[in-house]
């Protein structure tokens, strides 16, 4: 049974259809990536999974249960945690407070220290800036904070929406390396990316989304070698 399953999921913004029957699965332990152009529906897919946007039709299963009508805050309790597009760092809170927000739903407050240590070992930069306001961090640091904060929920499924967006190349490489590390520590990852090269080379499996529909699926390596993908998303003529 897949950890996450979307079956023919549609979503709308008013009368505009944003998702036109998305079908995809994520197995426990995988890194799955969803690539596509701007406006293809990547972020909407993420928002539908985390519950910020409603599903208008189709099936949305997490761990075998239908979560379509489950409130977004309760999906966090179920084990879905998201680092949103644009990072969503709370500007007026310190790094520590932001990380603590990630653990908002956790009942086992005593073990937070260990998770904090884990986040700080993944992102030593955050440890240095722990008392600094989130709004004063650089873009790369904010991205680290957003990912670290999502990890503080101890998720079973980590949703990462464009973690490389707007980052300098050395940060991009670092972020992708850490995503692999997080996955190796046992967290399932669904990754939305425009940086298809990096995403595909890190992913077990990948889906390509175009105008709200999945148009191609395969292993990361397969799609990386696909000539049509190369032309459309990897900038290779």
């Amino acid at each position, binding site marked *: 049974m897949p950890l996450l399953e979307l079956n023919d999921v549609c979503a709308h913004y008013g009368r505009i259809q944003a998702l036109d029957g998305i079908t995809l699965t994520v197995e426990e332990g995988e890194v799955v990536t969803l690539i596509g152009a701007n406006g293809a529906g990547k972020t909407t897919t993420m928002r539908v999974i985390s519950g910020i946007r409603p599903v208008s039709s189709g099936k949305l299963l997490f761990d075998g249960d239908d979560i379509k009508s489950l409130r977004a805050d309760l999906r966090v309790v179920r084990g879905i945690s998201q680092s949103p597009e644009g990072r969503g760092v709370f*500007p007026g809170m310190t790094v520590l407070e932001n990380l603590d*927000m990630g653990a908002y*739903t956790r009942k086992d407050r005593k073990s937070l220290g260990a998770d904090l240590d884990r986040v700080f070992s993944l992102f030593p930069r955050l440890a240095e800036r722990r008392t600094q306001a989130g709004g004063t961090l650089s873009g790369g640091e904010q991205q680290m904070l957003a990912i670290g904060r999502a990890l503080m929920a101890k998720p079973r499924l980590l949703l990462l929406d464009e973690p490389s967006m707007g980052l300098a190349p050395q940060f991009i490489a670092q972020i992708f390396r850490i995503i692999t590390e997080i996955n190796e520590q046992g967290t399932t990852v669904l990754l939305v990316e425009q940086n298809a090269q990096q995403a595909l080379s890190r992913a077990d499996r990948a889906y390509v989304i175009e105008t709200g529909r999945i148009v191609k699926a395969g292993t990361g390596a397969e799609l990386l070698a696909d000539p049509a993908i190369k032309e459309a998303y990897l900038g290779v003529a």
Partner: protein
Amino acid sequence: MPVISTIVLAQGPDWIQFDVEAFVSQFWSNTIDGLAYGSIYALVAMGYTMVYGVLQLINFAHSEVFIVGAYAVFFVLSALGFGPSAPNLSVAALVGDLVLAMLVAMLVSGLVAVALERVAYRPLRRRNAPRLAFLITAIGASFAIQYALFAWRGANPEPAVIMFRPKPVFEIFGATIDSQQLVIFGAAIVLMIITDMFVNRTRLGRGLRAVAQDPDTATLMGVNKERVIVLTFLIGGILAGAAALFYVMKVPAGVQFNGGFILGIKAFAAAVLGGIGNIRGALLGGLLLGVIGNYGQTLLGNAQWTDVVAFVVLVGILMIRPTGILGESLGRARV
């Protein structure tokens, strides 16, 4: 010293004159009394500022949440035998009665605020109504409650309830601080500190700040936004209920269907002055507005000037600092 006792503008209108001597001689007593008034504005301002911080909504009906609390104070104290002359009670009995009246007012105002949110604002939120719809609804709710009170109790103010005769406690710079001013200022500060600590130190308070800063991301953290909104209205209502006790203490015959209107506007102005969405700003703005109004009244020699001066200063400060003295803090991103 009184060389310039009264300055009359050379060719100015005769309805405006500056009584500098009175301003100087009453400076400290005005400051102290202004702080007591300002504490009441500040407590009410908290409700405006927190709701604005979380929802970007100016809850114009908050003045009615406050005046309903004042009615609660009136009814509780009347039932306890308070009336137009100060009662003859031991300090312990008096404190007990006043605390009871305050708790009931807090409960009533808190419930009215939550009910208001349920009935008036939540349905709009469900339908993704534009901000203007919220504003008009707020004004409508304000009038609805006001005139419901009018229909129930009539146009006249309720009979005065005197809680105690203020007694001088100590002097500062030659001005007397009386027991009433001390109680109001002290209690208000304690309530504000508790609220500030709740918002900044507790998990629920952190959830509230998260919703204020970024509602969608707060939801992704597992914060129940609806619950935070109810909590915000509840806290604002509770503080308005406490303010109602101090208001009746200071203005014993002020319980009237439209008695919240001007005070509400001044409290809202205080919130804007301090920086709307900013809890400490509400305190600062409230105290400043109370003090400035008193100065203006003495300087210009007439109580009618209180609000004129207070609002002129408000406009002046906003010209220099459009986001208020402390700026917005619960809320918007400053990235």
